């Protein structure tokens, strides 16, 4: 059954874009193993023919008239930005040095 190693937690943190320190990995990995063990029981509960439920109540797609509605102004949209330049979000470099 599930056994989640420190390396695996490190890899998952990587996928989730969180820099975990060694101390955090030491702390979180065993806790995650305990949680996973306790929820693993679920894998044998439902028979193959049970349909999955993704949502509490049945949903049907909702359409609206294709008409313009007021939205945020550029100033409002940028109001919480960590950095702004020329009415745009300013972000750190996206490509590597070699690119």
């Amino acid at each position, binding site marked *: 059954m599930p056994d989640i190693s420190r390396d695996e937690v490190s890899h998952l943190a990587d996928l989730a874009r969180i820099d975990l320190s060694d101390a955090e990995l030491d702390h979180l990995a065993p806790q995650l193993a305990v949680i996973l063990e306790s929820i693993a029981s679920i894998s044998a509960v439902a028979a193959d023919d049970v349909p999955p439920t993704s949502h509490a109540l049945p949903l049907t797609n909702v359409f609206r008239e294709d008409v313009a509605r007021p939205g945020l102004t550029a100033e409002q949209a940028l109001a919480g930005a960590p950095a702004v330049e020329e009415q745009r979000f300013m972000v*750190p470099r996206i490509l590597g040095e070699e690119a």
Partner: protein
Amino acid sequence: MSDLTRRTAAELVDALAAGETTSVEVTQASLDRIAEVDGAVHAFLHVDAEGALAAARAADERRASGTSASALDGVPIAVKDVLATEGLPTTCGSRILEGWVPPYDATVVARLRAAGLPILGKTNMDEFAMGSSTEHSAYGPTHNPWDLDRIPGGSGGGSAAAVAAFEAPLAIGTDTGGSIRQPGAVTGTVGVKPTYGGVSRYGLVALANSLDQAGPVTRTVLDAALLHEIIGGHDPLDSTSIDQPLPALVEAARQGATGDVKGLRVGVVKELTGEGYQAGVQQRFDEAVQLLVEAGAEVVEVSCPTFVHALATYYLILPAEASSNLAKFDAMRYGLRVLPEGVEAPSAEEVMRATRDRGFGDEVKRRIILGTYALSSGYYDAYYGQAQKVRTLISRDFAAAFEQADVLVSPTAPTTAFKLGEKLDDPLAMYLNDLATIPANLAGVPGISVPSGLADEDGLPAGVQVLAPALADDRVYRVGAALETLLTDRWGGSLLAKAPALEGASA
């Protein structure tokens, strides 16, 4: 003046209508109470005295000119810090959103403003609503007004404590796995999780989209119904909003308050009682059920065998949805941006990693990693896919139970409030607090928690939960109000009257 803070919202409405007081006086009384006790309780992350008083003045002007914006016009309210409030900070209890001021209102907030309720401020919560104690707030825990060394429940402990400490007559909470009902139980207050889709989620910072639902946090069932009728109903901005009128909730609460439950079929859920429930909590619950019997209800035991898997199901579905939702906190468009130390010209990805490490607390990291794991290829079918199937089985259990009973009942939380720090580093023990509340979220059905009394062993409040089929929110109000009447008649007053007086915070 100070007694204004002890009044229920319905009483305040009457006092305002009779000209006995004004919205400015009522709002100022709440603000004074906050100034007096919130240093010790810490229910609020942000107080907006100026905005609240301006809204109160507007309400008084309407009243003077003979108009009214709603049934609760002029009654102040506190809002959980997970709902976007234009012009007011919205942090979700997280460092990653410290100081963020949204450029728009959540629909719930817009409806409160349109209905004339002055917004006193934003209440404390576990970070991104992940927790059952508010101890996961990045801004420090809220303290239970019954015993300041104990947790007020979570994630909406701030809203429940604000109402229990008489800092606000009304509050808004959100309930993903019990975050309205469990804090209600451990603080001796009332909390309602509406039917999924009954209250708009637009502007509610999502924890788990398929489970989240905002609802009333109050001191009485009638107050909750009054508030629910204002915030509920269809919203075109939320694609999961139910496009149907709400049932008559206030009418149901008034009818229930007569205490007459003749012919009502009440199902006691076998899997949500007994083992794992504190003796005093179980005892108060059993007595509440007995009162319903004496008042004419027919009680049957129902079995929902899949409920024993609800907790595991929830802790797969919730982290999966949460890890995906929280991906938007990427340090680019809003919120915190942290530059990694010792890196020259860091890349966007490096900034993202450093920011998410610094900005998220332990519990959020745990759940993001768990969700990332559950959604990984190779594990998806075994975990997330399986959890979705069990979710179907839980809904089927509810459907079968509601063929035998009009409402289902259980203790709301398995224990009374525990000590701050007691379960902080034991995630599994913390998760068990939501054992009885989680099934309703997975199936989308409505639920209420009302105080059931004080547990003998510790003198702390416990709650009884009433669940009804989807869209039948009126039933939880009817039965909740009946229980409230039967119990308060027995106690000779509200449970909160027994709470120790809070010393004014001198600091």
